[in-house]
């Protein structure tokens, strides 16, 4: 198979394939040997790889042209979701498209960095203050909309994707530092704006034992799962925490805990290495990209991928609050996998459509 002709980056492709295989192995165990659920995950992986293949063929110049439209479409869908959510009650993240449902916020995880990269590529870098202000609006509007759903985890990721783009675009330190100071000053305001359950999740982080059956339950049970795995783990299909249902969300958000319990620190090191490898490979692609748009986008997407991984694992091992962020690729869930594979499609497109220019 000529991967180059398919516009696939060989290194990245094999790493993703390995990750996909591991995800099937662990979902089978975490779901309690549920064949149909594992099958559904396989279908989604296939869909994701299909999306990746498709997007990889698109030239980065086309992606650049489409960027504002993708961003705009994402915003529109978000508005629809918010509108529907206003009628229904509680969190509204899903948009039903007949056969399947998807979260428009996933589009914006790609849409925001695309839009910002497109915007920055049109001017000089590092960006001037007015351009930074415009960029801030571009990233804050969808962030706030997603936060209102409410989906704090995704909102943070979307915001960070914008922040990473800004940072990579070369926003000057003399601007970065006052902005950070401002954010720190505004933290109490943000705290006041959080919902009760969101606050308790953050408080739980510092003292999970305070409410072991309530908000602390997830963290405690997942730490028990990870810790009891030890160095070698309990072996595949032997996660007592997941199989006896002590660990909630074991095949979705907390799947890393199942992996850690069954394969121990050794298995965890492998997974960690794989994720870091994929992140660094993405950053390499960004480094070798040939124009501003491509490298800003590739760099930002790679960093968001890593952040996504870090936030999930941090939540599982009890160093970050419990926010509903899935583990990329591993967690069971449709739109997140397809969106993620689309990201890798973009990275591959950037990598395989380089003009041969020696620097």
């Amino acid at each position, binding site marked *: 198979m000529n991967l180059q002709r398919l516009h696939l980056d060989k290194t990245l492709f094999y790493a993703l394939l390995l990750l996909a295989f591991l995800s099937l192995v662990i979902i089978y165990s975490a779901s309690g040997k549920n064949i149909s659920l594992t099958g559904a995950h396989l279908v989604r992986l296939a869909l994701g790889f299909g999306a990746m293949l498709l997007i990889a063929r698109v030239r980065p110049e086309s992606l650049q042209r489409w960027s504002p439209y993708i961003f705009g479409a994402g915003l529109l869908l978000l508005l629809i979701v918010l509108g529907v959510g206003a009628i229904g009650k509680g969190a509204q993240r899903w948009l039903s498209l007949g056969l399947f449902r998807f979260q428009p916020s996933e589009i914006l995880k790609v849409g925001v960095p695309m839009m910002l990269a497109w915007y920055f590529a049109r001017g*000089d*870098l*590092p960006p001037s203050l007015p351009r930074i202000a415009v960029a801030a609006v571009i990233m804050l509007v969808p962030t706030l909309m997603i936060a209102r759903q409410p989906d704090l985890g995704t909102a943070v990721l979307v915001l960070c994707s914008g922040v*990473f783009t800004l*940072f*990579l675009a*070369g926003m000057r330190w003399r601007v970065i530092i006052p902005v950070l100071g401002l954010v720190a000053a505004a933290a109490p305001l943000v705290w006041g704006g959080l919902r009760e359950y969101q606050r308790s999740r953050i408080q739980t982080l510092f003292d999970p034992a305070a409410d072991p059956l309530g908000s602390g339950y997830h963290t405690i*049970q997942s*730490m*028990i*799962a*990870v*810790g*009891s*795995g*030890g*160095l070698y783990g309990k072996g595949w299909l032997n996660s*007592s*925490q997941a199989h*006896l*249902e*002590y660990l909630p969300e074991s095949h979705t958000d907390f799947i890393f805990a199942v992996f*850690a319990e069954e394969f*121990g*620190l050794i298995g*965890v*090191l492998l997974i*960690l290495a794989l994720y*870091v490898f994929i*992140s*660094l490979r993405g*950053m390499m692609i*960004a*480094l070798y990209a040939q124009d*501003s748009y491509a*490298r*800003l986008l590739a*760099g930002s997407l790679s*960093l968001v991928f*890593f952040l996504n991984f*870090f936030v999930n*694992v*941090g939540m599982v*091992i*009890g*160093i970050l609050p419990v926010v509903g962020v899935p583990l990329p690729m591993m967690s069971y869930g449709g739109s997140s996998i397809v969106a993620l594979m689309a990201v890798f499609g973009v990275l591959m497109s950037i990598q395989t459509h380089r003009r041969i220019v020696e*620097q």
Partner: protein
Amino acid sequence: MLNIPLKDYFRETRLFSSRLTIAGAVVLLLIIVLLARLVQLQLISHRHYATLARANRIKPAPIPAPRGLILDRNGVVLAQSFPIYTLEIFPEQVGDMAGLLGQLGKLVRLSETDLKLFHKQLRERSRFETVTLRTHLTDEEAARVALKRPYLNGVELQARLQRHYPLGGLGVHPVGYVGRISEQDMKRIVKSAYRGMRHIGKLGVEAVYEDMLLGSVGFEEVETNAHGRPVRTIERIAPVAGKNLYLNIDAKLQALVEQALGKRRGAVVAMEPKTGAVLAFVSTPTYDPNPFVNGIDAQSYKRLLDNPDKPLINRASSGQYAPGSTIKAFLGLAALELKDYDPAQTVTCPGWFSLPGDRHLFRDWKKLGHGAVNLHDAVVQSCDVYFYRLAVALTPEGMKDFLAPFGFGQRTGVDLPDESAGILPSPEWKKARGQPWYPGETVVTGIGQGPILVTPLQLVAAISALANGGVRMQPRLVRAAEDAKTKALSETVPEVASEIPLRDKGNLQTIISYLTDVVHTNKGTAYWIGWNSPYKIAGKTGTAQVKGVGQTETYVESMVPERFRDHALFIAFAPVDDPKVAVAVIVENGGHGSSAAAPIARKVMDYVILGKTQSPAPAAVRQENDE
């Protein structure tokens, strides 16, 4: 492409590279944070979390041990345990208790008593324990609850072993019963021995032999899921069933005696003189112990408490009575043992006695007196005047010292709780209570009145000592304990309680011959049970005054309200030449010992010796020789 403004390509690339390098460094830093945390969880604190994971999934569950059976000497079951369905509530899991009880009320029958008991237990229970709502669910009710169980949080359907007394009130006083472990019980028991158990012996053999009957709790390590459902059993330590106890009591004899006493209040104890084995241990009225097992409701309990016949009292070992003339059997022996005392010397009985210099008259039960009587005649005819004089001759201290080895004034040490010691008085004893000893008390002690009090059990042990050559055996209810698994029997060894110190062993034969004449000569007070007996009986009648009779009054039984009538007593053993059984009978307010008490003793002896019941005696004999 040409109209795109020229950008400083190299500067931008350098800037981007440096920013990406910083980002890469941060990525590596964050990975180190993750690694550090993972090492901490999976290596350093691994044991801690492994323990937590194990504690999560493995719950040790106690397996209650089946309580030992209680059987009579022939293997008739007196107390057993059998499985029943109980409906239990785990209050910690219930949000709306009233609503839940309403729902359950539609599935099973819940009486007001059930609900009252439930709420009472709810207040008294310790945390994380289930509370019983209903016991003895029918199969149909159990099926209905089982069906709805998944939708009812905190409801448990359990199969538990329930104590049951198949013969009801028969032998309730010796057997006793179990009841729920109370807060007071909790303070004295070893809690681990009672894990998963709800009942404890409260009375009788059930209480005294608690340790043997209990057995030891088994344990099961069960893997449970997050919803508390057992998934599989990992380890199991089987419980050890409690020991089965065989009593010396013969349930048939017990029933026979209960029937003979009928509605009268009284007590009968039958014992083997040679071993101390208690063959019958009856106190009437009896009551059904079964309602006590799961907690009797307040109303029924109050009815039992307020019953003027006091069924809850164990009259046989806790009831204290004046021995009346039965004491003459022992004081007669004391006379024989007395130095410089001639038992053949006659005393004239005019029907009354008075102390020198005192005008108080001590009456004989026979108004006109017995005429000239020696010791033999006085015992046979139960002459009071003779024994008034004898008592003075013996002195109060002398009587006390002689009676003490027979076990009066002290607990027999029978294997039952709450035994009374009775009272064996002396001037010293009264002085300790700040009261003087009156000379008249010496006189009435001679006929078993005054401060002296005995229990029916003491009486039977004392008469057994006469039957057993002066060796008093300790009464025993339990004959043997049987290992439920190996069926190995360990029998209780007969124990000597005391030996009566005698100057002349021949005196024992003499008093026994007198007591035989009480039953078998036509002047004897118990002749009407002896005239047709195919074996020889030695016995002594007694009548204990309940209400004092004034100096000039005459006691006429029919004119006295029933509660103030005299208690009827009879003690005996048979056959005289090889005693197999001794009996003590007390019929409260029964009137005369010979007519009310002796026939019951005869029935017991017939049962033991002949294995049959006796036909009633002709009325003529009865009238003539009534005490």
